[in-house]
């Protein structure tokens, strides 16, 4: 049981880390890209600015909370 928990924790830290909102927002950005492409609309332009916004918001949140 301990091994399963450690394995789960390793992957959680590896993928999600200490800001779960980043992972959730990335999932939305990927879903939107897929959806637009699925509808025949070119969506290569979506991910780079989305990632920039997600990163900016995340570091701003952390900076605000650490004063």
């Amino acid at each position: 049981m301990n091994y399963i928990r450690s394995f789960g924790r390793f992957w959680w830290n590896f993928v999600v880390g200490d800001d779960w909102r980043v992972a959730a927002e990335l999932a939305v950005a990927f879903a939107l890209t897929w959806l637009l492409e699925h509808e025949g609309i070119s969506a290569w332009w979506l991910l780079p600015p989305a990632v920039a916004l997600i990163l900016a918001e995340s570091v701003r949140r952390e900076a605000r909370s650490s004063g």
Partner: protein
Amino acid sequence: MSSNVVLFLATFLASAVEAVEALTIVLAVGVVRGWRSTLVGVGAASLVLAAVVAGLGPALQHIPIGTLRFVIGALLLAFGLQWLRKAILRASGYKPLHDEAEAFSRERKEAGAALPARSAQMDWYAFTVAFKGVLLEGLEVAFIVVTFGATQGRLGLAAAAAVAAGATVVVAGLVVRGPLERVPENTLKFIVGVLLSSFGIFWGGEGAGAEWPGGDVAILAIIGFVGLVSFSLTRTLRRRRLAFQPGTAQG
């Protein structure tokens, strides 16, 4: 710069950062508890890592390339953004810099406080700490090697970059005979974070169905964009911190 060079560079730098962390743990435990059990721990972890790479690499080649790129791109982006986020916060002074000398002395203190083993016996403390340190840091390297290698069809090149990084760090560690505290770890993490996030955007986008203008060349534009955004964020945050706390300026 071809995509092979970028791939080699990204794998080399990411592996070097993890190797510095693993070496710090191994050196601290080896110096205090002795080298025999420590090196057995390192060897055992290396075998497990080799099995992971040997098992996962070929298995990944059976997954359709679109699905593979999407999953790996998303994982790399999530992982890369964590590195980048921490590197930006450290560079702007919102988080303390990772100090290998301090990590070394902390590991050394903990190793010294643990019960000593009899000289002829296996020292399970040294074995376990060395094993865990090398395995955990090594798993991150294995993940990068396997994903980069499988997605680009260059498993050998990615593995060679990781081996070269490990060898470079070990030789440097032997030469200085101590923790590699002069390695600009945060700068390396910043660069690696930019590279991993950029590859994540590129492959994740392709996996989601996007077609990048210019094909593979687009990766260079993405690296430039992510680098510029990260650099601007660092500058903005540093200025903001200094405005709130005058007199605490750091390089």
